[in-house]
């Protein structure tokens, strides 16, 4: 059975858009297991349970863990790989004589689970982690520019990191909602206005962008263009 591993961000983004419910039909459609590691569960549920803000949203997310739409998976192999990947990732870039701590335990825990479970895809919105995997040079350039200081790369660590994450395919919440749109899951929201489908798609894409998904305006325009035959 296929496995899809989720990072914290896409689940939060879907919840904040009242779209978490699309996970159940998407899971059925894909015939996959949807999984998260323990550290992601901590960020999703355990931490916000301790504060008032987002506590109810966390409770809503909890329902999807309780009914097994999303499974929480912990194992020692994943924990070991997490430590290894974290050490590599956070010693890749250096500035002013200091290794820059780029990524967080939970983000790397989800990445490690993707590897240990040989998952079909890693669902992650978070830009830094994705760039480190897909285009570290671009990330370095962004940091060079923003930090106004020379960022040096530890090529050996970066190479070792990439050897471990080789072949990982990633998707974002923006792609999930687009698929949801394509298979008609969002049709109940079709508005009474001109170009209802285009308006629906545009609004849901902007909805995920404005709730934290790292997607550009140009990409949203491109998605709408791609989906034109269905509009």
């Amino acid at each position: 059975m296929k496995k899809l591993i989720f990072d914290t961000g896409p689940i939060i983004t879907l919840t904040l858009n009242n779209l978490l419910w699309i996970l159940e039909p998407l899971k059925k459609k894909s015939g996959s297991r949807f999984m998260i590691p323990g550290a992601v569960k901590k960020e999703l549920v355990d931490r916000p349970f301790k504060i008032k803000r987002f506590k109810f949203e966390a409770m809503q997310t909890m329902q999807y863990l309780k009914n097994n739409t999303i499974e929480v998976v912990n194992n020692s192999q994943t924990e070991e790989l997490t430590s290894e990947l974290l050490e590599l990732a956070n010693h890749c870039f250096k500035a002013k004589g200091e290794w820059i701590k780029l990524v967080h335990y939970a983000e790397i825990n989800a990445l490690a689970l993707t590897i240990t479970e040989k998952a079909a895809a890693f669902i992650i919105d978070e830009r830094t982690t994705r760039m480190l995997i897909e285009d570290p040079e671009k990330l370095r350039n962004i940091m060079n520019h923003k930090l106004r200081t020379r960022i040096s790369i530890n090529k050996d660590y970066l190479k070792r990191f990439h050897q471990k994450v080789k072949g990982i395919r990633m998707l974002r919440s923006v792609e999930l909602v687009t698929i949801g749109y394509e298979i008609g899951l969002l049709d109940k929201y079709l508005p009474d206005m001109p170009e209802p489908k285009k308006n629906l798609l545009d609004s849901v894409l902007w909805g995920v962008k404005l709730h934290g998904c790292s997607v550009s305006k140009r990409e949203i325009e491109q998605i709408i263009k791609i989906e034109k035959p269905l509009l």
Partner: protein
Amino acid sequence: MKDIVRKDILQILAGVINILEKREEKDYLDLKGLSNRTIHNSAIFQDDDSISIAVMVYAIAKMIDRGLTERTYDMIFTKLISAKSSLEKFDKNTYRAGIKGIFSIISKTDKRLKLYVEDVISQAQMKKAGKIYKHGISIGTVSELMGVSYWDMLSYLGSTSPVEEEYDPKDIRKRLNFARRIFNIS
């Protein structure tokens, strides 16, 4: 405390004291600008001192914008001078206690004003968190650094300072095709 951080903080404190000494209309804007000075160090060193000075200066700016009593203004000003003096003498413990004292004044004053739903210090934290994220640090790392939740970070980032990621739009077609394969859509 790293020397580079100490020097940067001293410059900022000097700047803040200079701004507050003159008491002009543009103080709020000048302080806001100054609060960004330690963002680079906050992103690289991720130390409490760089972060707290950034948050504190921004919080002072917000409080001035809302209106401070003469007494509160003077209290903050005095504590800033004292904190600067401690740091110049390499007495980081007294310096940190001074900064904590300023935060306490801001927090008490904010509670008395009761004008905003979210307190000034939280606002300042989120603002600075957003800045550090834009410098390339991951959301998870920033949320841990600033003591805010991932939920808060995403909620704030999306609505106030979305990062325009420059992926090649051509890639989106490949991603969607891959997504369709995953979800068994022909």
